């Protein structure tokens, strides 16, 4: 983790001089604003912050942050981030990607950065559609989705980003909503503090090509009924007075338990959220919760610690230097069998 900034920064210090060019009403605006707001709290000097992205609407993100930024090629941001972080472990490296960039063309790299546990933050904006190429279905689009490339409806079974990340062995996986600023900021702080790969799926609205995909959880008045807010050590309970319900998980299979307003959830068998549950199957069961049968969990699904890739690599470099001494080129070139031809 990078050092703290000397003078306190403000959100505007993270605003670049470029005009933001997303469509009006795009969920990306809210995400950008919340990231810029939370960066001073995270407190890394901005010269030590690098935003890396691939291609797509979300991938323009680094251009709008007044930090170091690298807007690269489609799907490969995790690979660029790996080079940056492995070379310079002291930098705070953020990857911004989308459901197409991260899970379609870049699925391979996303899987590998997660399993290696490189200490970077990955923000995956999931709007369940291709925006920049004008509205084709994406790997997270629902079966049957009608788009220009699927006039008869999509026949692809979608992938869930949280399940994908858990399956790849991610040590930190969370979900947030583009318009829920305070919660999103909390997730960003948690991700930044996590010493390993931290993936946040951000449910993001694309008003142009897939409007209202997440409207049930975006709108404050329906959110209480549709979103399950995960809090470590708290029972899995959602719904307001008169509609209180909880989730029990038996043999990895979730079920809904109706609760009275004053009833103790745990005595009725409701599970208590445990981010650091040693088996990922618990988090995987949570990730299977989806509308319309279940609420959408938001918050931290899993947070466990494992050594990070760049740390172990640096440790090998340091240990080798201690053991063998600093590299000596002359000694290397003259190692092994040599012979001398006299003049």
């Amino acid at each position, binding site marked *: 983790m990078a050092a703290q900034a000397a003078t306190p920064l403000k959100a505007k210090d993270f605003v670049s001089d470029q005009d933001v060019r997303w469509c009006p009403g795009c969920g990306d605006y809210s995400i950008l604003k919340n990231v810029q707001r939370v960066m001073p709290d995270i407190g890394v000097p901005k010269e030590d912050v690098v935003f890396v992205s691939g291609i797509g609407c979300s991938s323009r993100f680094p251009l709008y942050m007044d930090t170091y930024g690298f807007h690269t*090629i489609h799907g490969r941001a995790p690979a660029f981030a*790996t*080079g*940056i972080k492995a070379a310079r472990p002291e*930098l705070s490296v953020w990857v911004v990607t989308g459901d197409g960039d991260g899970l379609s063309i870049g699925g391979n790299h996303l899987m590998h950065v997660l399993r290696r546990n490189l200490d970077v933050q990955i923000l995956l904006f999931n709007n369940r559609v291709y925006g920049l190429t004008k509205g084709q279905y994406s790997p997270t689009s629902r079966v049957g989705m009608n788009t220009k490339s699927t006039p008869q409806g999509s026949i692809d079974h979608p992938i869930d980003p949280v399940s994908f990340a858990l399956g790849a062995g991610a040590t930190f996986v969370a979900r947030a909503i583009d318009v829920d600023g305070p919660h999103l900021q909390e997730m960003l702080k948690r991700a930044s503090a996590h010493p390993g790969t931290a993936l946040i799926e951000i449910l993001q609205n694309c008003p142009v090509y897939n409007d209202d995909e997440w409207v049930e959880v975006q709108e404050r008045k329906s959110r209480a009924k549709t979103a399950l807010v995960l809090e470590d050590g708290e029972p899995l309970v959602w719904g307001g007075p008169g509609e209180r319900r909880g989730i029990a998980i038996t043999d990895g299979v979730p079920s809904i338990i109706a609760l009275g307003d004053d009833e103790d959830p745990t005595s009725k068998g409701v599970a208590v959220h445990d981010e650091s549950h040693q088996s990922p199957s618990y988090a995987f069961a949570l990730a299977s919760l989806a509308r319309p049968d279940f609420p959408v969990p938001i918050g931290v699904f899993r947070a466990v610690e494992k050594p990070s890739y760049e740390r172990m690599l640096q440790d090998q470099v340091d240990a080798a230097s201690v053991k063998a001494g600093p590299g000596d080129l002359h000694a290397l070139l003259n190692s092994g069998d040599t012979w001398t*031809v006299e003049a």
Partner: protein
Amino acid sequence: MSQTKKPVEEIDRVAIRFAGDSGDGMQLTGTKFTESTALAGNDLATFPDFPAEIRAPAGSLAGVSGFQVHFASEDIRTPADHPDVLVAMNPAALRTNLPDLRPGGMVIVNTDAFTTKNIAQAGYEEDPLPAARDSHRLVEIPLTSLNREALKDLKLGARETDRCKNFFALGIMFWLYNRPAESTERWLGGKFKGDVLEANLRVLKAGHAYGETTELFPVSFVVPRAKIQPGTYRNITGNTALAWGIVAAGQQLEQPIFLGAYPITPASDILHELARYRHFGIKTFQAEDEIAAACSAIGASFAGHLGICTTSGPGFILKQEALGLAVMTELPVVVVDVQRAGPSTGMPTKTEQADLLAAVYGRNSDSPIPVLAPSTPGDCFHTMIEAFQIAVRYMTPVVVLSDGYLANSSEPWLIPDVGALPRQTVDYATDPETFQPYSRDPETLARPWAVPGTPGLEHRLTGIESEDVTGNVSYIAENHEKMVALRSEKIARIANDLPPIETNGSASGELLVVGWGGTCGALTAAVNEARESGQDVSSIHIRHLNPFPSNLGDVLGSFKQVLVAELNQGQLWRMLRAEYLVPAESLAKVEGQPFKISEVRARIDQMLGGGAH
């Protein structure tokens, strides 16, 4: 080992080919013989030629693995067109290699392997040995049984025992050419323990003693030390030299190296070698695929390291999009393509030079990249330092084209004096007052390298066309045209730093042979032989393939005829004709094998009108 009591005959040069099953350890045998020969002070060149399959079926033609070593008391440049001696461990090895042997050459065979089954498996209709007795000097040795006899009191299994027979053969060859065995014994001591060590040492000695006592060899031979430039030498392969050149570049530019690589034949050894040098501050990253390897290296360059990736043809093509980004964002990264026969998977262990056009032109749009090619195994070392110097000075990706022949063949290498290697300082941008991401050095047109961690220099790079100076996203037509022109002018200016190309032979004349890359030895040897026989032929070997050296056009224009010789269908030939409008001819070879001197000489004869030899 004791001095021989038989007569010793002095010879100038000899080429030996060891051939057997992939499981017979022929590459190891050849390598150990080569190391010993190097220590004996000869000039040498080797050519390992092995199948792509790890273990093809035993005794099959597809499974034959060969290692040729040519050594001499004079300057030599190639592994020789035709070996003088063939060591054939089985009928398949005899069948695939005998046609290459010089007429009347010596063939040493393991007669125990010439069973009816093996003979049939090699595709012979009858025992080939009687015919070989007539055509060649055939030396028939029951290697398997002699080896078993020597090891019978050790507690080794039959397989382990039989696996030692290559060292029995090596012992014989050490005796026959009066080579010292100490380097091999030392190597064995570091590699094995117990009975296996004892067995190998014992058969090496037993082979040597067999040579001394058998009546099959009335004389042994000695090739005196070569009269070569004084200094300290070692034997080196192209891949090792290339890896060490990367280490050296890090030291000489005082920058940490980051290698992103994905395993691929014949480049993997470079990754293996560099992974051992963490104490030089080198970070190696085995990426999930070829694309990630390139992207991680470019990421490391963005972060201020010397990013590099090493690959071969199919992997090189996968990196092209990432290279385009490095062109656009003007980041210094080096990509090594150890070319192999293609297209597609092609013949992974066989050499070719057919990625030249892909290196120079193989990306979308106008995206110029400097391209360099080493000419000998040892030259791979110096080429890597130069590649990084260009990358950093001009802020550009650089491609280095090695090839399968250079990668695996070896030569005695005059170890460079580290103090005399080029040094170069790297200046990162630091001044927030003057910094602009795409301002340019007036001489080189390089943009500044501003690395994360530098206060006040926060900026964004993108593959979207960027505005001149500011680097802001720009879709303005005039700006794009200007940036395209700037990017190509920058690469063109590299020619200002290049030394003029030197001609081997005369500055002008009848015929100029032009080559590049790993064919240098064969082409130079052919041209030198032709000159000695009185032919008006000279040669150049082009190291800088993009941009070309400034005097190349003049040199080409100074000869009546030009012949471009390369292991592809005429890629440099096309480039030279397009660039200089010279009526050059092409000598193209695509067999997965290096040029033979005789092939080049035949074409020279033809172009000069009649055979002079």
